[in-house]
């Protein structure tokens, strides 16, 4: 398999993405990008099964509209990695900013550290396409707001309480949010409801949790129990009762 290494120091994102596209077109299946600092849109709209390993801090919208590649980030990400992503995997070994996995349609975003506000906002699913956002650390307010499908998992590593910010699943009408430990009722958003995390859920999600832990290089065994809270929509039509006809 052909590998290519790019030193992105001081490089603008357009030539960087052009290099990536040309490499992919010429059959490269492994790209290493070093010294990334703030470049936006890396792997934007890219269709391929290439693996991209990035060292540094990625700018906003890493892998937006991406369909297929695997991006491994040894570092942090700014705003919205996995934005409207279609397929593939993003693994962030550091932390990420607000709106991670915004409107994500498929594929997986794995973050070892914390993420900011509105993580997984408006993720949606269709048939076999079920996006996954898994977070090793904590998340801030409005997690899974407007969520219309897919799965969010928050492990809360390094935090006493996995999630302590308000508005979890505000307006959720599809999908599920799985949070390690208990979640205070007052933190649930409008239209979100808390249910028990059952043995069946564990059975169903164990492979995913295990895979996530392997990607972020954490021993999964301590996360394979039913010590989670599961948050789901109270209805698939959260705003149906808001209106009357003229």
């Amino acid at each position, binding site marked *: 398999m052909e590998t290519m290494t790019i030193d992105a120091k001081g490089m603008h994102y357009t030539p960087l993405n052009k290099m990536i596209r040309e490499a992919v077109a010429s059959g490269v299946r492994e790209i290493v990008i070093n010294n990334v*600092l703030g470049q936006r849109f890396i792997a934007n709209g890219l269709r391929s099964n290439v693996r991209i390993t990035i060292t540094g801090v990625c700018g906003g919208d890493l892998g937006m509209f991406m369909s297929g590649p695997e991006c491994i980030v040894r570092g942090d990400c700014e705003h919205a990695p996995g934005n409207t992503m279609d397929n593939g995997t993003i693994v962030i070994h550091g932390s990420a*900013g607000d709106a991670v996995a915004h409107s994500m349609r498929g594929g997986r975003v794995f973050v070892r550290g914390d993420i900011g506000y509105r993580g997984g906002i408006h993720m949606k699913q269709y048939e076999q396409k079920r996006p996954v956002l898994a977070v090793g650390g904590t998340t801030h307010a*409005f997690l899974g707001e407007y969520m219309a499908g897919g799965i969010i998992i928050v492990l809360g590593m390094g935090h006493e309480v996995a999630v302590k910010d308000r508005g979890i699943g505000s307006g959720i009408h599809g999908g599920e949010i799985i949070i390690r430990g208990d979640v205070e009722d007052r933190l649930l958003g409008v239209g979100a409801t808390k249910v028990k995390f059952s043995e069946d859920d564990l059975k169903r999600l164990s492979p995913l949790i295990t895979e996530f832990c392997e990607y972020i290089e954490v021993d999964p065994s301590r996360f394979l129990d039913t010590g989670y809270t599961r948050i789901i929509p109270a209805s698939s039509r959260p705003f149906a009762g808001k209106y009357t006809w003229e």
Partner: protein
Amino acid sequence: MCGIIGVIDRTRARMDGSSIKKALSLMNERGSGEGAGYVAYGIYPDYPDCYAIHVFFDNLVEPKSKVDEVLHKWGRIVHQEEIPTYEQPCLKREHIPWRYFYKPYTEFIVGSNNPAEDIVKHLVMTVNSTIPGALIFSSGINLGVFKAAGWPEDVADFYRIEDYKGYIWLAHNRYPTNTPGWWGGAHPFNLLDWAVVHNGEITSYGTNRRYVESNGYKCTMSTDTEVVAYLFDLLGRRHGLPSEMVVEAMAPPFWDEIDMLPEKEQKLKRTLRLTYGPALMNGPFAIVVATSKGIVGFTDRIKLRPLVVGENGSRLYISSEESAIRVMDPDVKTIYMPRAGEPVIGRFVQ
């Protein structure tokens, strides 16, 4: 709108402006090349007790003679000079930046706790609202704002900010909608000891503006950010609120959060919200405010704008993007995101 970055050295060790220029340039995607600026504290040690008044003059004839006249009326000009600038190919010189080092005559007014500051505030308001062709954009002691319409690196080179050394720096990369090309519209905004950089738009501007105007401030910059400087001046200086309380008044907790607090704290927060309701700032914003005593950064109550904090020993950084901090300080130790409305405060160690 825009990208912001600020740094404080908590031991008052002074830094030159070269690294913040690089950091701001890294965030050029956030700007449009139509406004950038810097403010630094501690840059005028030779005039430690003078107000450094920076003025944009359209020409050095009528506007300047009028400014000279009001300054002479109210105090003594210790020194004045054109601010040194260096032509840049991509920056069109719209004004002549000038600086006065100034001491007001404090015995001229009564009924003021701080006559010097009140006089300087009065001068700023008077000059900016009545003298065409003159705009005071910086008016604090031992600090200075350097701004213009252009890309961050061009503005920095125009003023050669690497020649200045300060213990606090704030910088701002502007993406204007309303007043592109206007130097006065660039950030930072400054009044007396307060300087502000701001990313976002304040939807409560009309309300906030009425409130500061009813307290004697005049909004002359056609932008929502100046109101932040005036609110800090009003609440922080004139009402004497500590920085945490000023931030709390501007970005208070939600009522349902207040309702859950223990009685005493609930009462404090309720009273603060009721008293300073007109100072509540709505809309998306990330703001860093500086004074000679430190810096404070905070976002709106639902975190609609990004803000990242970095620390390395005595240095505290606050920025729109982590990458900008890492450009300034590749060895930065801690990076984190403050929660919505939570003030990040950098104070000097004793």
